[in-house]
C-alpha cells in the first residue's frame, strides 16, 4: 500500500527547509509574532532613550488609558475575521456613553443604565449585521450607516457633555487595586476579561471556528453545513456590544459622557487589529494579536508624549506601521498558500 507523504523529493534537511516548514506550519501566527517583535523593540528603545519608560506606573497607565480601545479591538477582530468591517464602533461608543450619562443624570438607577448601554450598542450591531447578511449590503456601507446613526443618536441625546456623578460608575475608574507599584482599575480588569473571553470563544468554541470558517471561504463554510448567517450577524452584534462596553469604560474614565467622543476611533481600532496580525481578507488573526496591536499603539502614543512631540506624529507613525504590516502580511500569505 502506498502512502501519500509530505516530504519533498530531495530529503536533505537544510536550515532553509526547516525554516520554510516552520513558517508554513505556523503561518497564521507570523504576523502576530512580528507585532510582538515590534512591541519589544519599541519598549526596549524607549527604555534606552528615556531611562524611566518601563515603570510599573507607566505600564499600568498604558493598560488603563487604552482599555476602551482593547474592548473595541476585540469586537472588531470578530468582524474582520469574517472578512467584514465595522466603521460604527467610535460612534456607538460615543452614543452609549452619552446615553448612559444622560440617564444617570436623570436619576435612572445604575442597574438599569449599564445594561441599557450595552444593549443599545448590541442593537446597532445587530442592525448592521442584519443589513450585511440579509440585505446583502456591503459591510463598509452598512457599518457606515451605523456610524451616522450612532453619531446622530448621540447628538439627539445631548449636544454637550454630561458629567457623571454616579458613584457606581465612578468606582469603576476610581478604584485602584494595587500590587506593589502596579495598579489596575475595574475598567482595566473588565477590558482584560473581554480580551480573554474573546480569545477563548474564537479558539475553542464552535461559534468561534465558524467565524474563522466564514472568513476563510464563506461558500465552503455554507456547504459544510455551518450556520454562516448566524455567525456573521453575531459578529456584528458582538462588535456593537463591545462598542457599548467601551462607551461605559470611556465614560467612567473621563467622568462624563461626550457626544463627540470617538470620532475617528474606528480607524484606530482597525489599525491596531491589522497591526496585531489579523488579515483584512478574513480567516486569519487572533484576539491576542489585537491586544498586542493595542499595546503597540499605546506605547507609540506614550513615547510621543514623552518626547513632547506633537500628537499628529501619532497618525504618521501608525500609518507607516500599518502599511509595513500589510506588506509583511501579503508576503507571508502569498508564500504559504500553495495551490499545488
Amino acid at each position, binding site marked *: *500500500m*502506498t*502512502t*501519500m*507523504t*509530505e516530504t519533498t*523529493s530531495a530529503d536533505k534537511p537544510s536550515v532553509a527547509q526547516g525554516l520554510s516548514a516552520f513558517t*508554513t*506550519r505556523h*503561518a*497564521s501566527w507570523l504576523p502576530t509574532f512580528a507585532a510582538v517583535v515590534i512591541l519589544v523593540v519599541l519598549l526596549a528603545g524607549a527604555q534606552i532613550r528615556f531611562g524611566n519608560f518601563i515603570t510599573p506606573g507607566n505600564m499600568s497607565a498604558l493598560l488603563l488609558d487604552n482599555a476602551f480601545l482593547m474592548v473595541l479591538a476585540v469586537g472588531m477582530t470578530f468582524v474582520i475575521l469574517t472578512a467584514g468591517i465595522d466603521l460604527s464602533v467610535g460612534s456607538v461608543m460615543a452614543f452609549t456613553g452619552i446615553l448612559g450619562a444622560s440617564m444617570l443624570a436623570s436619576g435612572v438607577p445604575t442597574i438599569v443604565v449599564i445594561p441599557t448601554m450595552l444593549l443599545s450598542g448590541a442593537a446597532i450591531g445587530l442592525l448592521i449585521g442584519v443589513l450585511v447578511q440579509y440585505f446583502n449590503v456591503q459591510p463598509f456601507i452598512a457599518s457606515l450607516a451605523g456610524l451616522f446613526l450612532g453619531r446622530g443618536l448621540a447628538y439627539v441625546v445631548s449636544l454637550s457633555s454630561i458629567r457623571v456623578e454616579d458613584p457606581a460608575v465612578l468606582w469603576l475608574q476610581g478604584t485602584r487595586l494595587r500590587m506593589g507599584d502596579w495598579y489596575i482599575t475595574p475598567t482595566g480588569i473588565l477590558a482584560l476579561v473581554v480580551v480573554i473571553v474573546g480569545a*477563548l470563544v474564537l*479558539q*475553542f*468554541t*464552535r461559534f468561534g*471556528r465558524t467565524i*474563522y*470558517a466564514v*472568513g*476563510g*471561504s464563506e*461558500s*465552503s*463554510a*455554507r*456547504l*459544510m*453545513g*455551518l*450556520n454562516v448567517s448566524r455567525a456573521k450577524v453575531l459578529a456584528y452584534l458582538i462588535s456593537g456590544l463591545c462598542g457599548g462596553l467601551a462607551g461605559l469604560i470611556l465614560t467612567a474614565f473621563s467622568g462624563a459622557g461626550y457626544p463627540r467622543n470617538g470620532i475617528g476611533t474606528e480607524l484606530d481600532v482597525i489599525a491596531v487589529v491589522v497591526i496585531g496580525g489579523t488579515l483584512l481578507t478574513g*480567516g*486569519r488573526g487572533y484576539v491576542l494579536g489585537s491586544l498586542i496591536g493595542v499595546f503597540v499603539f499605546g506605547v507609540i502614543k506614550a513615547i510621543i508624549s514623552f518626547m513632547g512631540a506633537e500628537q499628529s506624529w501619532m497618525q504618521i507613525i501608525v500609518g507607516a506601521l500599518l502599511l509595513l504590516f500589510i506588506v509583511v502580511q501579503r508576503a507571508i500569505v502569498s508564500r*504559504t*498558500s*500553495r*495551490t*499545488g
Partner: protein
Amino acid sequence: MEGHNGPMDEVRPLVELNRATVQLGTTLALDDVDFRMFPGEVHSLMGENGAGKSTLIKAITGVIPLQAGTLKLGGETMRFSSPHDAQRAGISTVYQEINLLPNLTVAENIRLGREPRRWGVIDGPRMRAEAKAVLDDLGLDIDPASLLGSHAVAVQQLVAIARAISVDVRVLVLDEPTSSLDLDEVGELFRVIRELKERGVAILFVSHFLDQVYEICDRITVLRDGALVGEYLPTDLLRIELVQKMLGRAAPEYASRDALESADAVEDSYLSARGVTSATGIIEANVDLAEGEVLGVAGLLGSGRTALARVLTGIDRLDAGSIRIEGKPVRLDSPRKALSLGVVYSSENRRAEGLLGDLSVLDNITLALQAQRGAFRRIKPERQRELAASWADALALKHTDLDRPVGTLSGGNQQKVMLARLLALSPRVLVLDEPTRGIDVGAKVEIQNMVSELATNGLSVVFISAELEEVLRVSDRVAILRDARIVDTVTSGTLTVESVLALVAHPASSEA
C-alpha cells in the same frame, strides 16, 4: 469489477427519486427523472455537460429543491431545505472544487461543525486524534495539525474525502473526485470506496474517466438533456454504447492526422529551449517544438508539467537556461512579452486563471486581442461580434451563448471560449495545460480534433494532460517528465500507455 443484479432488486433502494423535475431559469434541468441507489453499491451518473447531472446531485444533496417529484431516503420522503439537512440525514458530498477552508488545520476541516467538545469548548487534542484516526483509515500520512492551505490540491481533496466519510454516512456523493489525483491516489480512493461498500454505504460516483467508471461502478444511470435515458449494468454496456447513449448519436471520430517526421525536428524547430530551470519545479529541460507539431507532455502530478508550461510562456522566471524562437534567443519576461512573440498559454485552472466568469462569452473572446491592440485602437462592437461569431462557428459554440456570462457555460464550452480567445491572437505556439479536464467525452474529442486541425495548419501545440491515452493520441512526440526533469522525448507512435507509465513512475513507488 462487480455486477449485482437479482439479489439487489429485492433490497429496497436507499435513495429514490421519483419523477423529479427542476426548472432553472428557462431550461428544464431535470425532466421527470427517476433515479435510485441501493445500499452498498457504487452508482455512476453519466451524461454530457448540461445533461442534468449536477442538478440531480444538487437535488439529492439539498442544494436546490425539487419543483415536482419526490425524494426518498430509506423509504422516507425527504424535503431538504439546505445542504445541512441533507448532511444530517447522512448524505455527504465531496465536490470537484475543494470546498474546504485553507486557513484552518486539517483536523479542523475534517471535524468542522462536529468538533468534539468538553464542557462546551472544543477539545483540541481529541479533535486531532479523531482526525488522525480518519486519515489513518484512509492510509494517509498527513499532519492533522498542519494548515490545509499548505498542502497540494491532491492532498486537500483526500482530506475532503476524509471529512465526508468521518460521519455516519449513508450516501456518499463523489463529484469528479479523481481529477487531481495520480494513479496511486486513485487506487487508494478505490480501496476506500470498496470498504465503504462493505459497510453498506451507497456511493454516487460522477466522473468523466470511463475506465474508472467501468472499474468501480455497479450500475450506471445515463442522463441526456435533463431526461433519463436508462439505468444499466456495466457488464451489459459497451463503452461505445455508453457514449452513444450519452450523446444520442455516434461518438465523434477522433480524426487522426499524419504524424510528423521527427527526424529533422531539431533544425526545424520553431521554439527551442535549453537547460530551462525554474524554482517553481522544472530542472534543465530541453524542448524542441517544430511548426505544426503537437508535443505532448506526460508525467505525474507535481512532475513539473505546469511549471514547464509556465516558464515557456513567460509566466514564471527562468532561473537558468535559454529559449529561442526561430533560432533567435528571446527573454520571455512576462506573459505579455510571450504573447507578442506568439506564445500563448491556456491554464488548467480555467476559472481562476483564464475566464472572467461575469463577463459575456463575447467579451471573453475579444479580451486578449483588444488588450494586445491597446486602449487607443478599440475594436468596434460590430467587428467584435463578427469576430466572436466566427470563432463560435469554428469551435461549435452557439451564437445565442455569445451574450451569456461565460461562468454559466458548461466546462467544455468554457474551454472552447478560452481557446477562441487565444486563437484570436493568431499565435504561433499554443501551450494547453489540461484542456480537457472536467469535460465530457463528446467535447473532449472535439477539442482534440481542434488541436489536430490547428497543428495541421501550422500551429505548434504543447499538449499537457494527465490522461496518458489522450496525450498519446493527440501528440506527435511526447516529453515525459519525472521529478521536474524531462526523462525522454519520444515519438508517440512508439509508445503505449504502459511504456509511458514505466517511464513516469517514481522509482520509489514501484510497489503497488
